[in-house]
């Protein structure tokens, strides 16, 4: 039960982070260059993504489960640890916070500088930027959903979590209709980094032949261990930096 909830939450939050990044690009291009070509780009990327999922899902089931756990565990571990490391450095003041507002302004300025097109013709700039953004971020969502779902044997649950995250982020984007500054991206990345790394350790270990003490409950222990270690590191960095704000409040 607890592993189902953790699987859903981890997939949901990780997918939401990627969806926020894709939505930032789509909103920026759509607002400046118009929505028709931008949405065609989003649609085309969605079709390509669906094809990749259709091919990748069944193919992954043919691989022995231990080998799959070993490979995806290693990938998640490497990917998650990168996120966690950067989130700790940002929260500790040693890297600038990733600003979605600045990303929006940058994309908007680049879109505004590109040559305008006739109203009825396809605007390839909008199409390409939207396509690229949605495809790349969507591939990361797909990777998260397929790997989490297939290793746990709960692809449906992971797909539901990924879809729910995309729907929620798009709904929020439609409501705010502006930069995504209000989404605390570093907090999300910190939490997702801890979760991805914990799952990576668990699956990578299982794939290597480890029998975890307490079976699936060991994931909670790994989350607690990495969470506390990351908070302690953040606090240490902030103290070294001489900041007065408590680390937990700024993570």
């Amino acid at each position, binding site marked *: 039960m607890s592993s189902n909830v953790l699987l859903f939450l981890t997939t949901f939050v990780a997918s939401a982070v990627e969806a926020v990044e894709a939505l930032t690009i789509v909103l920026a291009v759509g607002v400046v260059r118009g929505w028709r070509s931008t949405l065609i780009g989003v649609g085309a990327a969605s079709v390509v993504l669906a094809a990749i999922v259709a091919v990748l899902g069944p193919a992954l089931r043919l691989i022995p489960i231990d080998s799959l756990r*070993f490979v995806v*565990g*290693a*990938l998640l*571990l*490497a*990917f998650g*640890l*990168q996120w*966690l*490391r950067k989130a*700790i*450095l940002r929260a*500790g003041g*040693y*890297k600038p916070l990733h600003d979605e507002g600045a990303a929006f302004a940058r994309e908007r300025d680049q879109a505004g500088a590109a040559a305008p097109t006739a109203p009825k013709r396809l605007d390839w700039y909008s199409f390409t930027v939207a396509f690229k953004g949605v495809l*790349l971020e969507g591939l*990361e969502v797909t990777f998260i959903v397929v790997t989490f779902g297939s290793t746990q044997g709960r692809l449906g649950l992971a797909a539901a979590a990924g879809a729910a995250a995309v729907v929620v982020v798009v709904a929020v984007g439609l409501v705010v209709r502006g930069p995504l500054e209000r989404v605390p991206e570093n907090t999300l990345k910190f939490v997702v980094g801890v979760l991805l*790394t914990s799952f990576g*350790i668990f699956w*990578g*270990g299982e794939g*290597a*032949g*480890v*029998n*975890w*003490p307490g079976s699936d409950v*060991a994931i909670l222990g*790994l989350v607690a*261990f*990495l969470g506390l*270690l*990351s908070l302690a*590191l953040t606090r240490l*960095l902030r103290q*070294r930096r001489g900041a007065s704000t408590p680390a937990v409040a700024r993570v």
Partner: protein
Amino acid sequence: MKYVVAFLRFWWDFVVGDDWRVAAGLGLALGLTWLLEHDGVSAWWLLPLAVGLLLVESVQREVRTSTSN
């Protein structure tokens, strides 16, 4: 060729990122865990320990680099 390079670069950034030592350390820890487990030694503690050490070391190295610049 351009697309192959872009594809490989995407996967390199996705998996290795900006600190190859962490990725190499993870590979080593996973390999060692596999070897110990297949020799009949319980090695569940090795990966969490290795990940903790790699995280601390990588963060410290980044802090040293940014303070020396």
